[in-house]
């Protein structure tokens, strides 16, 4: 009887440890440990804001983001962040059309050559060149952004959100970064009078240690 109870308890413990949905440990206030981390698309958002007709801000997002982050706890300045965004995954919540032609028309226009030209430039990429620890969980990330076939340096300010140390598979943690860019610098010059040229980009990313990534994928 005692043996059966012990077996049942160990089985339950194993399931809880393997299941990524199990309650996580409390987030810590310390940045993650050294290692390589993958971007978790499910918990990562790349959003943008643009002025519409000078009267309001319109928001959109990209739904497919991948990438990695290499951290060295002793040398935070040498961190390397790489992000790859599928330009075709742009989504501005445009599903209110009555006919098939109207449905998703704005997103189709954004995917077309007037804006992102996704056939020609299917991905948007970012690779950090300098990461500066500014204390209090804040980072300044300078990197090369390749958008619409043009590569320019951008500077983002990032804020550490928290770390979750997993029981068996490793660690996940999150940052939220923000930067602005001028779309004219990236030769996206359609209708500058009607649509704002300054774009604010917000990247809320969650990174998983490679082992946890593999477990989640299973």
């Amino acid at each position, binding site marked *: 009887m005692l043996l059966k109870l012990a077996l049942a308890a160990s089985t339950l413990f194993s399931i809880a440890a393997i299941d990524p949905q199990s309650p996580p440990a409390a987030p810590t206030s310390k940045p993650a440990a050294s290692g390589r981390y993958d971007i978790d698309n499910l918990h990562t958002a790349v959003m943008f804001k643009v002025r519409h007709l000078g009267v309001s801000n319109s928001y959109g997002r990209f739904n497919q983001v991948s990438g990695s982050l290499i951290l060295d706890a002793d040398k935070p300045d040498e961190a390397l962040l790489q992000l790859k965004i599928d330009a075709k995954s742009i989504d501005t919540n445009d599903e209110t059309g009555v006919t098939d032609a109207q449905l998703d028309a704005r997103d189709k226009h954004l995917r077309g050559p007037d804006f992102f030209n996704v056939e020609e*430039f299917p991905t948007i990429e970012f690779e950090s060149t300098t990461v500066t620890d500014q204390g209090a969980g804040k980072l300044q990330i300078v990197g090369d952004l390749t958008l619409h076939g043009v590569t320019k340096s951008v500077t983002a300010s990032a804020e550490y959100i928290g770390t979750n140390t997993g029981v068996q598979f490793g660690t996940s943690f999150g940052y939220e970064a923000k930067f602005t860019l001028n779309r004219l610098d990236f030769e996206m010059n359609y209708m500058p009078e009607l649509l704002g040229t300054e774009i604010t980009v917000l990247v809320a990313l969650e990174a998983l240690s490679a082992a946890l990534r593999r477990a989640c994928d299973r």
Partner: protein
Amino acid sequence: MSNLLPDWLRSWLEEPIVNEWLCTLGWAAGVALLVQVAGALAGGTLAKSGAAGSVALVLGFVASVCTVVPGMPALPPAERWQWCAWLTAASLLLLLFEERQRATAMLRFLVHLGLVVALVWWIVRPSGRAREWSPLELQIAQIGGGLALLLLLLLGEARVATGAAWTQALPGVLAAAGAVAILGDCTFDRLARCAAGLFAAQLVALLIGVAHRATPPSRAAFSAGTIALSSVLAYAVCARSISDAAALLLLLAWACVLLPARTATTGRALLMAGGLPALLCGIAWFVRATPQ
């Protein structure tokens, strides 16, 4: 004046995008008309205004590109579709130069070949769609498309020399109008505005052709217009903005100029130069969207 218009029309005209389209049309038509008039005045005889027709067509189209970019695109252009302005301008210069030389047909063939190769090299070759094609498929598409365009230029010029000016211009007007409607609906506004410029310039050429039936049509105008329309359509297809079938039908509508109409009655000529291209453009409208 604005009070005379119904509310729906006034609000439509006040739409920013409509304003931009009208501005493009105005520039292209204005420049084309100005060159036609200047050519007729400077030439002294209507016969000499044939060359003015080709200059008007190209400048009208280039003016429309300039309103969209804005300004003349840089060399090399920032965006690949802007090559269409340079290609059209180059075609005009080369063809007019060749016309003045009164050279052999071989030189004209070489000019046409050079234009087609440039179009394929700068617009089609670096296509985003090419990623999905094997090298063999890519070569077939480029060489096949290039040969078809070369054939259209050679046969079209031969045909233009024998028909009335208005029968040459009408298919062009309709094909350009079809391109405007289809590109605009398939969310490529900037290229649609360039096509609108071509439409306006072609329309001016048509009106001049109707007013002066004795004026011999310009071969250079046909070839330069063909380069303008085909480069616009080629880029739209490469960018998956319109379907292959729609682009092909629009080019076929343009190619209606090849139909023989020398002995035909005016009614039959009108049917061939107007009815058939309109039908092809109508079909293109129904197959315009790229399958998602």
